[in-house]
């Protein structure tokens, strides 16, 4: 009798653990960032001022990085077949008021026409990464472009909805500081998370949106700038999100779950024991 009870107990425990833990373990398919490479830029939440004026700040070395391959811009005219910058490494921080995004990329020469840009979708409508050009079957939205050029020494906050529509905005909200050292550019873009300007992307912590990058090597080759205008290194859209502040309310729900489960067990066992005695 004792052996049979033990056997029953083992089987019951096995069925119970399997039926509860398998769904838990398989609740969602993990993403494959390890194989595919980076798919997202994450702005990590921090406290206090951000290193917006110092691309070389040691703070940046503590921030996890994402790296994206870059391609020559072959999507529309004028194309380019080969570009200097093959990949860009991106780090991001925010403090719930302001954000800072650091681009880091290899460029052997420092030139006045060296430039870099970030691009975001504005609003809820999807936009094509190529300057929000018109899509034929989908109503698209505009894009917000943050453009930095070394010779300008600052960023320009821009807007576009289709080819030939790119223009600086009336309200300029973006700052950028670039520093070149030993063949590497480090450029920090910064802005308030929200600006109140309808032509800007508004960053809501916790909400996923899209980001794209463009980089120009302004080196002079045969009397002409090597990469300018549409001749640049680009990426298409990748995911982008500012880390939301921690939500401690979930621990309350966990405790509630524990209490409810224990109460259920208590009631069930009392019922079973009463049934056996009666």
């Amino acid at each position, binding site marked *: 009798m004792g052996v049979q*009870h033990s056997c029953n107990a083992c*089987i*019951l425990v096995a069925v119970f653990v399997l039926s509860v833990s398998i769904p838990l373990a*398989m609740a969602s398919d993990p993403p494959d960032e390890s194989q595919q490479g980076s798919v997202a830029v994450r702005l990590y939440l921090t406290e206090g001022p951000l290193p917006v004026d110092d691309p070389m700040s040691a703070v940046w070395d503590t921030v996890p990085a994402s790296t994206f391959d870059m391609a020559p811009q072959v999507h529309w005219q004028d194309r380019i077949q080969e570009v200097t910058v093959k990949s860009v490494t991106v780090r991001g921080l925010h403090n719930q008021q302001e954000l800072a995004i650091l681009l880091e990329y290899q460029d052997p020469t420092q030139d006045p026409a060296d430039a870099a840009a970030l691009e975001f979708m504005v609003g809820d409508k999807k936009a*094509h990464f190529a300057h929000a050009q018109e*899509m*034929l079957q*989908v109503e698209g939205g505009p894009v917000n472009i943050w453009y930095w050029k070394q010779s300008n020494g600052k960023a320009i906050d821009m807007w576009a909805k289709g080819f030939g529509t790119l223009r600086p905005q009336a309200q300029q909200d973006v700052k950028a500081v670039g520093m070149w050292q030993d063949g590497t550019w480090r450029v920090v873009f910064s802005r308030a998370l929200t600006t109140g300007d309808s032509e800007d992307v508004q960053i809501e912590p916790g909400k996923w949106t899209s980001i794209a990058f463009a980089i120009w090597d302004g080196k002079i080759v045969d009397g002409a700038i090597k990469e300018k205008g549409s001749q640049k*290194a680009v990426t*298409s859209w990748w995911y982008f999100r500012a880390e939301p502040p921690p939500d401690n309310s979930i621990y309350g729900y966990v405790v509630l779950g524990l209490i409810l489960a224990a109460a259920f067990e208590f009631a069930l066992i009392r019922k079973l024991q009463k049934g056996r005695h009666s």
Partner: protein
Amino acid sequence: MNRPLAKAALILIGMYIVLVYVLPLFTAPLPASLIYLYLALTLSAVLIYYTISGTTLEEFMGPIVRFLSGVDQVGPAKTARLLVLIVFPLLVGWQTYTRLAPSDLPPPENRTIHPAPPGEFVGLSNPFPKTPENIMMGKGLYAAYCSPCHGANYDGKGPAAPGFNPPPANFRDPGTIAQLQESYLFWRIKKGGVGLPVEGMPWKSAMPRWEVELPDEFIWKIIMGEYDGAGQSPRTWEEEE
């Protein structure tokens, strides 16, 4: 007495092994949500089977009731019962946490690789004969306009390919142009990424809208060159019947 429970446990474990380890030997691994669904269906079937009559119900439920009530339990059975009573609330708490904990992962992409083309592009046939001259011209045009992304070897590994998401199509892969008709390629080349419907996530494709730069004749000949260079044949109506 314990046979129904043992059978139920074996069926569940067997089904889990088949779904997770055996099926991927023959086909692509199943998504976790589908495996969960199949296991839930199996569990439901087992429960229905054993509760369909009074006798089987007693055989199946009897050990469970005796185990959980704890009456007259001694030794390992008592320990196991205590373990279950402790673990169950902990698992509920863990599940509550995993469901509510903020995820750091981007949303899943449900991109349709080959969305349906608009009506005017269905069933068109290549108006140019597949002569060596036309194929040669198509390959030349492909080299000039397509190979930077799709590769000189038609394998999607051109010098511009690494930066794009989704990556350029690999025409040597039997899952790409070999599955499609020439009219489909004509649509994709002519309208490009911006011509895709919403399920194709057009905002991410870098495929140019070649109709603004190339005449139809060039596009039809590029299609010829593409199939020939990749060693593939277009899908035809006859094969679908």
